[in-house]
Each structure stands twice: as structure tokens, then as C-alpha cells.
């Protein structure tokens, strides 16, 4: 058994709007002159500490939990599950 840190990043799919990101971009970033930044997308970040025998198993368990517990909506969201570097 060893401890693994697994990161979960949930964002809206590419075609889906992100009013929060748009607001941050338009009303904060552009207003303060950072015109090099051309867009902002927001999302949700989860860091899970997982006790398993292998890193693969840790990823699998986290993926399953996110799916089964509906931590994200597969119809609207993209999910990225990865080990913390």
C-alpha cells in the first residue's frame, strides 16, 4: 500500500459557455490591460489522497468515484484525472 495524490480537473466542454470565465476575462483581465490573455475558462479542481497498491489503481478508483457519484456531468463537462507530479 502506498499513498498517491490524484488530481481531478473538471471543465466545461469546449462548445459549452463559461460565463464565469468570460466575466473574469472581460471585466477584470482586459480592463486592467492584460490584452495578451485572450480567454479564460474556469473549472473545478479536486485533490484526492488515495491509498492503493499502484498508481494505476488510484487513478481507476478516482475515475470511478467521479463517474458514479456524479461529481461531474459527462454530458457537459470534460474531466482530467492525473497523478500529481
Amino acid at each position, binding site marked *: 500500500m502506498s499513498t498517491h495524490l490524484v488530481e481531478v480537473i473538471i471543465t*466545461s*466542454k469546449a*462548445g*459549452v*459557455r463559461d460565463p464565469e470565465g468570460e*466575466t473574469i476575462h472581460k471585466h477584470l483581465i482586459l480592463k486592467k490591460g492584460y490584452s495578451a490573455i485572450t480567454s479564460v475558462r474556469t473549472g473545478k479542481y479536486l485533490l484526492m489522497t488515495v491509498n492503493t497498491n499502484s498508481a494505476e489503481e488510484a487513478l481507476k478508483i478516482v475515475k470511478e468515484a467521479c463517474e458514479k457519484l456524479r461529481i461531474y*456531468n*459527462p*454530458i*457537459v463537462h470534460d474531466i482530467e484525472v492525473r497523478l500529481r507530479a
Partner: protein
Amino acid sequence: MPLTQEEVEEIRKILGREPTVEELAMFEAQWSEHCSYKSSRLLLKLLPTEGMHVVVGPGRDAPAVRLFKDFAIVFKIESHNHPSAVDPYDGAATGIGGIVRDILTLGAKPVALLDMLYMGEPWDPHANWLIRGIVKGISDYGNRIGVPTVAGDTWFDYAFNTQPLVNVACVGIVPLNRLVLGSIRPGDYIIIMGNATGRDGLLGSSFASKPLAEDTDKEIGAVQVGDPLTEKLLIDALQILVSRRLVKYIKDLGGGGLTTAISETCADHGLGAAIELEKLHIRQKLTPLELLVSESQERMLVVVEPVKLSEVEEILRNYDVMYSVIGRFTEDGVIKVFCNGVKVAEVPAKELARPRAVRRVSHPPAEALKGLKPLYSLPPEPSYEEALTKLLSSPNIASKRWIYEQYDHEVGVRTVVKPGLGDAAVLRLLDGSSRGFAIKGDANPRYTSIDPFNGAANSVAECFRNLVAVGAKPIAIVDELNAGNPEKPEHFWYFEMMLKGLAWMAEELRLPVVGGKVSFYNEDHRGRQVKPTTTIVGVGRVKDVSRAVTMDLKESDSVIAVVGVTYPELGGSEYLYKVFGLEEGEIPRPRPASELRNAKLILKAVELGLVNAVHDISVGGFAVALAEMAILGNLGVEVDLDLVHARGVMRLDELLFSETQARYVVEVKSNRVEEFKRLAQRMGVRISLAGRVLDKPVLILLKGSKTILSADLGLLRDSYNSLEKAIEGGA
């Protein structure tokens, strides 16, 4: 739903040539069931829509009724059933956004939201996820635009496990002389304000006009994300534009997008329009077709006369609201759409806006017989205490605290009677007077699925009673008919019967149906319809909000009176379902004459200050109504069932749990009992002075000298407050 071959043929005839792809898309959007009401329009004519209070009836985005001589109330209901099944959070949130914009179109200030949610069983994992998402979506959107969610209705039922019904309503108030009712002239400008148009929600109305696909993953284009920040800017900017009388006409860009907004506006005014699509502000590069039918949220159309254009533009810029002036109205009744100088569509507005109505085939299924079945051989009666506990903990009856505590129900400081305490919400106008209004939404999916005609009539009656119970005079209703697939005769029959029941009861109770919505195709991917449901939202006038009445018991030694007569009517009751697992039998009869008579007594008694508390009897029957009043007031009661007027009752459970209509439980002030009795006598209303309020926390039911139930109020309260556990601990 794509156009049928006959419809394409008809379009050719209208245009006298082959339609362009843009024109076809416009027709597809506008002729969808969602926008055109083609299957329902003929039957909707049955509804009584006129009345002395009606200022604007059906036809506009929202109706207006006169609340007081100088104030109008604008209210409307909307469904977001299909989007909420796919993406509960955003689906429900955008439903709120849409209904708020409908209210804005008459120049009213939105002051209250209602949510009528018919969802799956909390212990079903998928349904549980939908429930949480829907409630959170409504909560976040409503809270962020600063409009309180003050009332609603909730039902949990296996029939809604995959396809919930999310009906939302908004109420706005406006001084009568500020209503935006201007007439449009040729040459007036068409401005689109609010969000930039994008690819989101492409042909969403067509999506709502067909059954859910098994693989909803592919419906990504129909997913919309709510943008409450922009909505709030729309609300604020429109308030200014309206108060300075700068706009003649306002319309929401909802289902059907730009196409619907322009075609309906033109058709209603006998005008045409010339549109330059390239002027529309956009979020991404779109084809003319996409620009015409995109259903991007938080957009509105406003009409401005030329001399006021610059002033309007200045205000919109100041409010940081994006806008574009996309064209002008014309005299010829034809909508011409150009993109960079190239004409992409030329369509007569009237023919586009109003497709030929269809009279659908209608046929009762064999299943409809269960509503005609008299109940005469029920299983033996259970323990009354056990039955009462079961009912109080049923999600359909239990306190909806878990839901309304997620909502801000006080923002705006108008809310007088808050969720959970009264049969309806009561709000003050906040104009310096003590005037106000009451509002409530109601439905009973079980009734309408067993007996759609009488079930729909009972929804109207329950809404009527709820308003009366807080001391409000009901003045108008709006309706939402949630039905199955109109192309299936056995689904359409339910719609037809619900509509007829609604029309009949509204007429009998003298409640004009000033607006409403129809939602079809509420079926799962196997083609089973959900329980067809008639949702009614009603408003009532409150002359003095300080006299509004809640349902919690207030004073020991006061007297418990039952208003109305109880019949053995257990068919379709929550008791029959929870205790015996049965969903059948004759549902309670609608009793319009008794409703009117009994309501008059309640309103008079409230006015004279004879009562401490009033609660209408509905789901769960008399025993549940009584228990709710005791639990909320934290005072015990003792009632002798022998004293409760009933006819033909053979068993005690019929007396305790029948959901007979036109009844109320009233707490009469101990020193006003004689007055109350005389008043009832004079009005010819049957009342039963059957018990009294105790100063110890216990609910006691007697039959003469025999105690048939004695329950600790604390235990009953635990059952009543169990919804949170059902949802949080459910999945």
C-alpha cells in the same frame, strides 16, 4: 423535430418557390411544438381568459392583471423539463433566466420566483443527482439576480426518475401606467441586447419538441449555461429604459431565438422587418442559419423609435450591456433577412409565426379505467399512528426545508409569509402601503395521471384554496400542461382531458387563465410518458399584509374547526399509495360551489380577525393537515372525530386521510368562537368545531371517549423533517 414532408410542401406553397436553407431552419424553429403550439392551439381556445382584472391576456410573453387600481402584477410560468433531464443544474438555471425575461417584457420589476418541481424518488441514484442539480441551479441563478424564490410545489415519484418536470414561475409588479404596451410603427429600430449570440442552444426548441434520446450525449448543442450576471444587467437596464419611456416593445429571445422573436413581433403588429444579420454581436463566427436560430440565453429584443435611439444606446453603454441595432420594421408584412448585403431569407411574417394548427387524434387508453374504479374492498386499516408517521415522512408531504433553505427567499424585503409557514407566500408591494399579494403553485401528478380531467380541476382548486388560506382573494391563474407525445393518441388524450378540466374549473371559480405554457414529449427513451401534470400558479390580492394568516397553531385553548364536509374519497390519495401501494380509484371530486362558499367564509373570518391559523386540506387529508399545524406551532391538539362532519364514511381511515376538496382546518380564537359559528351559519357553510389546542406537545384523536391515536409531537416532527435525510442519505 424536423419538418414533416407535408410541412415542407406547405412552405413551398407559402413562398411560391424552393425555400433556402436559412428559411427552412427558420420554419423548423418556429413551427416546432415549443414555439408554435400547433398541437394545442385549437384546444387552448377553451380556456376562459377574460375578466375584470385582466389587462393583458394570453398572446404576449407574459400577461398582466390589475392587482390594485394603480398596480399590475405580471406573472408567467415556464417549463424547462428537457434541458433539466440532460443537465439539471444549467437546465433549471436557464429556466429561471427565461421566465424572468418574460416578466421584463411588459416593463415589470421581477420580485418573486416559484419552482414547481416534479422529480424522481430521492433514493434512486440518478433521480437524486437530478434533484440536487435542479435545486442548486435554481438557487444559484435566483440568488445571483437578487430575486427571492418564495414558494413552489414539489412531488417525488418514480415516474419522473429520468425525465423530471421543472416548472418555474416569476412574478413582477409594475405601476399600471408604466406597462410597456406601445404600438410599433414601420421605421422603428430593432435592438438585440444582452449576451452575444453563439452556437449554444442551436435549435433547442426542436430538442424540446421530441422525446429524450437514449444517448443524450449527442445533444450537446442543446446544453445551455445560465449567465445570471448578464441577466442582472438586463433587469437593471430595462428598468431604466422603461421608467424613462424609451422603449415601445420588449420581447425575450427564448425558444426559436431571433427567428421567433422577430416573426411573432411582426405578425402581432401586422408588420414586416428588414434585418442585417452581420450587425448582430456574436461570440464566435456563425453562419446566417446559425444566427437565425441560435437560442443563446440572456438576450432580448427591444423596439425603439428613431428619435430615442441615441438615448437608448447611451444607457446600454453605461450599463455595460452589449447590444446591436440589427434592423427596422417595414410595412409590407415580410421579413427580409440580409447578411453582408446578400438576401438569405424572405418570408411572410404571419405565415411563419402561425403554422396551421393540428387537431391531434385523441383516444383514452385502457389504463384510464383505473380512475373510474370505486374503492370498496380496501385492505384492513393499519395502525393510525403508523400511517400518519408514514405520511408525514413521505417526501410529498414532509417539510420542503431542504429545498427552500437553499434559496434566498427574503432578498428584496417583500416576503411577509415565508416558505413552509403558510399555504401560499405573501409579499408586500413595498410602496409605502400595507398592500400586497399572495402567490402559490400547485399540481398533483398522481391525480392527473389517474383522472386527468378531475385531476387538473383539483389543481386549480388547490391553488385557489392555498391563496384563500393566507387571506388572499384569488384573481387569476396561469397554467403549465406537461404531457406526453401529442402524436400518440393515448398520450394526447391526457393532455386534452387536463385542458378541459382546467378550463371547466377555472370558469367555475371565476379565475381567468391569463397565460400558460404547454410542454409535450415528456416521455422517456422507451416512449413511456411521465405522469401527465397540470401545474397551476395563482395570484391573490392582499389588502393588508399584516392580516395575512399562517398555518401554525398559536394559542392553547383556542378551537379547532374543520370547514367543509368529508367524503370517503381515498382514491389517488397519498395514504393509499404510501400504506397500500395503490395508485387507483376515483380521485376526490372537484367541488366548485363548495370551494366558492367555503372560501368566502375563510376570507371573511380572516378579515374580521376571528382566526389564528388556517390550513387547506390537501395531500394526506385531515390528519396530516392537523399534524402540520401542530408541528409548526409546537402546540398540541385534541380532536374528536365524531364531531367532524362526514358523509358515507365507513372506516376511520377515510375520515383521516381522504383528500376531499373544499376543506380547511382553522384555529379559531377562543374568544371569537360564537362569532365564527354565526358567520358560518349565515353563509351556509358546514363547519365542525371538533377540538381544541393544547399546551402540551401531543396530538390526540378521539372517537367519543375512546382514544384512537395519541402521538408525541416531537416524534411526528422528526418524520415531518425527514426529507433532508431522504435526499442527503439517499444515493
